[in-house]
């Protein structure tokens, strides 16, 4: 080692630098390790005005950006992380829904109805972080992957006739958003099981153990969702932090479970329920991997106001936040905390949340929340400013019209009055509707009725984006912002359409059932569904409550429409082939026969026969032909008895045939 001193100095310097850099990287490594993959599980229970109970399961798994390029996971499901990495998904939502959310009875103005009420069947939308020309390819691959992952026919969304790219009405995403629905997809356990597999505890422990399949699929409405958001942590966008939200919203009927309790006074009472009575199971402690595990019971604004009115029983209770015996209802478990909504905008009242922490409970002491009503309460849910419904008009198999009707709810008066008392106040309504190509919508026929009066479209439509359908290529899409006066009582939109003809291969199985037009999404950008709670640290720990605090547009989906199209007789092509071929064959055969006919010879033969046969036969034949041609019989010498005999025999035969036909008709058809 005979190095010159300068070199050794440099080497030293290099070594020090290396050391420094290594400690630095080490430090950053520990920093990222501090941010671990997290899992939260929460359940929200809410009594609904129509004697039902809403259960909203919320699971959130978060993977922070790591330098392992998404290959190594501790809690986060590998399949989802690979999906995000592969298709560069910025945001995605997949929902499987059975049943229709009843906006009138179950509410239309809260976070649950705006975010977790979904159209029936499958709805998928995704925002990709790829160049615009690759978005379609990514979407197609994504549909196939999800189809395999969730055992559903999501792959049908691959075809360009099934998805659309809304620009602004559904969600702000310039060009990289794709949206598709399958209204007729049947949802069942085979979709739930892979969804549960994404949870670290699956359905073995924690709140997810409540998910008893028979009670869920017996429910009035259930919607199972998967929401993905990814955020690139560095500039290259390689290391993604992913948040996976899995929610299951179920509307259950607690009274159907119990049969014996039919007291006369109780028929007015709301049904009492407990976790074990609606799910048939109890919670045996939390999922040990979960960072937080809470159950919330929500009493909504209308209910709280009603309780307050009720002879001050509820008011005392709520004001003191204690537990008197004289309350309208009783909880079987004492809540750990009561959260009161901070209500700044609505003057109606504020909702209450009772928080129960599952951490204290275990196998020996299971958690079973029960709610028993003591006095009958009647209340109603908060409604969206306009109640929307959609229906078909017209009859026949040729054309028809789609109508979207918006009717004002009572909320309109009070809240809008507060919003702006002046006459210039406006109510904005976003409408997003996708129509399959075989219903050819004529967008020029758009008619608008405000308060049952036909109005010029231009006066009320602020912004409109129409993408007409292309036959067998893309569906028609309509995005529209309506600007209605605040005092509007009702508004209606109609669009005429022609029904298209499909190629024989394009009909789905059971085509006679009709074709679905997916739900339209109607949102109200002026209104935000959010609940505000007093700020403290414990709220930050609960991702569901922080989700509830986020402002989101009030959104509702309309009904799915069923359009009957002309369906052909599917054996028709073959029948056509057969009949054409038979005609051709007849023609050809007779042509051939004519060609090889020997007229002279046949005549000679006939003559010879006529000469030989002088008997009765020819006479009879000629008589018969004469009878058929309608001429009177010339040779009247022959005895009439034979002809009558023949006639009676013929008649008998004809009768026999008729009897046979009648019998056939009677017995076999």
């Amino acid at each position: 080692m005979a190095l010159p001193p300068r070199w050794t100095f440099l080497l030293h310097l290099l070594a020090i630098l290396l050391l420094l850099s290594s400690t630095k990287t080490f430090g950053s490594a520990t920093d990222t390790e501090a941010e671990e993959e997290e899992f939260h599980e929460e359940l929200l229970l809410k009594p609904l005005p129509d004697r039902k109970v809403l259960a909203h399961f919320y699971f959130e798994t978060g993977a922070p950006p790591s330098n392992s390029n998404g290959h190594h996971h501790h809690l986060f499901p590998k399949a989802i992380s690979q999906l995000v990495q592969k298709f560069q998904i910025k945001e995605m939502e997949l929902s499987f829904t059975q049943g229709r959310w009843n906006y009138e009875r179950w509410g239309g103005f809260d976070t649950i109805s705006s975010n977790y009420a979904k159209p029936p069947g499958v709805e998928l939308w995704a925002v990709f972080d790829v160049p615009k020309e690759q978005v379609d390819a990514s979407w197609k691959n994504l549909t196939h992957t999800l189809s395999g992952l969730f055992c559903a026919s999501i792959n049908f969304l691959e075809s360009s006739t099934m998805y659309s790219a809304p620009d602004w009405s559904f969600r702000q995403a310039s060009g990289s958003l794709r949206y598709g629905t399958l209204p007729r997809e049947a949802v069942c356990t085979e979709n739930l099981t892979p969804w549960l597999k994404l949870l670290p505890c699956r359905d073995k422990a924690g709140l997810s153990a409540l998910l008893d399949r028979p009670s869920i699929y017996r429910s009035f409405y259930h919607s199972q969702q998967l929401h993905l958001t990814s955020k690139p942590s560095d500039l290259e966008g390689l290391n993604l932090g992913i948040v996976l939200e899995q929610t299951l919203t179920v509307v259950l009927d607690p009274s159907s479970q119990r049969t014996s309790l039919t007291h006369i006074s109780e028929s007015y009472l709301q049904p009492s329920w407990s976790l074990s009575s609606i799910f048939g199971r109890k919670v045996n402690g939390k999922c040990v991997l979960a960072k937080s595990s809470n159950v919330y019971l929500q009493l909504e604004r209308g209910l709280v106001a009603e309780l307050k009115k009720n002879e001050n029983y509820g008011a005392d209770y709520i004001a003191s936040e204690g537990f008197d015996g004289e309350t309208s209802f009783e909880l079987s478990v004492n809540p750990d905390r009561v959260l009161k909504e901070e209500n700044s905008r609505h003057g109606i009242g504020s909702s209450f949340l009772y928080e129960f922490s599952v951490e204290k409970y275990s196998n020996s002491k299971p958690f079973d929340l029960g709610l028993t009503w003591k006095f009958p309460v009647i209340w109603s849910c908060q409604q969206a400013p306009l109640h929307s419904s959609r229906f078909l008009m017209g009859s026949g198999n040729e054309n028809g019209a789609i109508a979207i009707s918006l009717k004002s709810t009572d909320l309109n008066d009070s809240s809008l009055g507060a919003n702006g008392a002046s006459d210039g106040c406006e109510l904005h309504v976003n409408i997003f509707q996708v129509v399959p190509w075989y219903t050819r919508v004529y967008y020029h026929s758009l008619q608008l009725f405000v308060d049952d009066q036909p109005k010029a479209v231009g006066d009320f439509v602020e912004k409109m984006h129409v993408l007409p359908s292309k036959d067998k290529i893309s569906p028609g899409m309509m995005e529209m912002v309506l600007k209605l006066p605040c005092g509007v009582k009702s508004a209606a939109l109609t669009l005429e359409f022609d029904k298209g003809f499909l190629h024989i291969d394009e009909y789905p199985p059971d085509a006679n059932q009709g074709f679905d037009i997916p739900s339209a999404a109607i949102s109200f950008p002026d209104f935000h569904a959010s609940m505000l709670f007093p700020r403290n640290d414990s709220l930050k720990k609960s991702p569901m409550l922080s989700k509830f605090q986020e402002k989101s547009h009030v959104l509702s989906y309309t009904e799915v429409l069923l359009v009957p199209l002309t369906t052909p007789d599917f054996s028709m092509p073959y029948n056509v082939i057969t009949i054409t071929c038979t005609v051709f064959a007849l023609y050809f055969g007779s042509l051939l026969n004519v060609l090889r006919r020997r007229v002279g010879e046949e005549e000679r033969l006939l003559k010879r026969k006529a000469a030989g046969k002088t008997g009765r036969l020819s006479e009879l034949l000629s008589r018969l032909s004469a009878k058929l041609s309608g001429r009177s019989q010339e040779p009247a010498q022959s005895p009439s008895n034979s002809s009558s005999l023949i006639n009676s025999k013929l008649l008998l035969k004809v009768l026999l045939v008729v009897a046979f036909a009648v019998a056939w008709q009677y017995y076999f058809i």
Partner: protein
Amino acid sequence: MAEEISESPSHPPETSATPPPAPPQQQPESEIFDPKTMRKTKPGLKRLFLTFSVLLSFLVGFPFLFKSVEIYRSPLPFGDIDNVSSDIISNPLLFPCHLQAIFLHSNPKSSINLNLEELELSIRSKITKFTSEAPPQCGACTDNFTLSLTLDDRDCSQSPSSFYKCGTIRAVDLDFSDDESVDEALKSVDLDFGGKVYSVVVVNGGDVDGVKAVVGKYRHGWIVGRDWGVGEVGERLAETFVKVFLNGGREEGLIHGEFMPVGADGRIVLSFNLLNADPSDWIYDWDFQKIDETLLTPMLEALGPIANISVESQVLYHTPKSSFSSWDEKLGSYIFSTKDLPFFVSFPQVPDYALYVPSAKECPLLLQLPNGEISKTNAFISPMWGGVMVWNPQSCSRDSDSGLPVRHLISPEDLQMVFEVFVGQFRQLFGIKSDSLYVGALGTYSLLASEKGFTEWELDVLSRQHTCFNLHSSSTTLGSLSRLVQSLPRMIITDEIGKQVKFSLEAAKLALRNASLGVYDASAVSSRQARSLAEDAFFHPSIMSVSYYSFEHCFAVYSPFFLPVSMHVLLAALREWRRYKQEKAKYLLWKAKEKVTS
């Protein structure tokens, strides 16, 4: 109904009560000419010609019809496929190998008294003996080797065409008690000449008793011993060359020779899973990132030419094993016998390598071999699938009865041990043993293990075998594709399939050529290409979807026209022909009669 209507006209004559008229009694006008049996004119050919021309035109038209309803099939080179596959099957790949042996003496002054030619003959005969003993193995190169010997003493006598230059290695510099240093020293003089030559250094003398044989991490080994004869040295060398360098030190029948755990596209995804049987007892986690960087990455880089390997890991919870274990008093642990292994864990996803942490109820859990012993590694391998290892926490008591379990990290030392077992299992999937000793006929060889998981000579064996396996697989795939295509005449074959088949054949030919030239890496790559293209062609989506357009379908569409028409045409032709024959017979009869009368 149709029958009844057609019947009715024929009824009246039958039902009439009058007896049928007597047959006409016709008297022949002349005795010779009977108009029933004879005719005077020649029967006409007009109608016969007409009907037959119609029939003929139909027959001629049929091929055109078939041509018009024919579906497009890209022409596949069936002949080429057969040629290549018969080529691969009939003459096994001949990889050229270069072997060299260098004889040194610990004392550089003294000379080695060995007869080179005699020795070479002896080695060659031994090598052929070993080769003939073992069944022919694909990817071996014992049929096509060159052997060069060097006596590196004062005289430096060499066999022709040897790579080695005398005096490069000096026995004095090597310390034979430290194998690693010898290995590195030999590596530093570049004995393998760019990865082409396998060499064994035979040192006479040295301070070891008996014979010590070592095979290093690269492409060389050495044998140190004293005073041996030509026969013994020859046998030793032949054994090292054949059994170790060329066959990879494996025994036959360990794992099927042609099996390679590589996917059709030449990719392997190694998925490592940590299974916590019951997280309410304890939760173990691992720092996989570090293991990946330190242990796995060098190995995967070394395996690069054979397969493109990626690694991923996950931790799963609530994965209890699905079969019971029994408590053993003597061992103080739970025993799981190997016969229950198929029911070990039912995984939600199929993993490749699983580290199973048992729950407190069954801790510690040991695996029992069929002979009653306890498995040393506590792991088992499942061929073509991966391996499972059971890892017991140090103290089998729960963290605390009341509180929630804490997340433990498996210590790096433990993890190191676990991954050594996994690497061993991975090697076993490739058919390479992980023992540090190879027991030959004449003694044992100690094998140095590489920190990369695979030594260079092992990688050579793998890449030779891999090439061979890929070529076999691509030829069988193409062969079955060609059989399938030929057996289903109504299957559409798109141009893309044709192209894939063509490229696959080209890649296979290239791999064959490269293999015969001894370019292992290039031939491995092109063989991989050949295989993946062949598989792509075979599993092309268009094959499956269209094979249902069958001949029956075609028949159903065309038969309503052709069946009735063909009946008309055939009957007409038949009748005319019969009539013509009859009339001709009449004419001939008359002619004959006329002759007789005249």
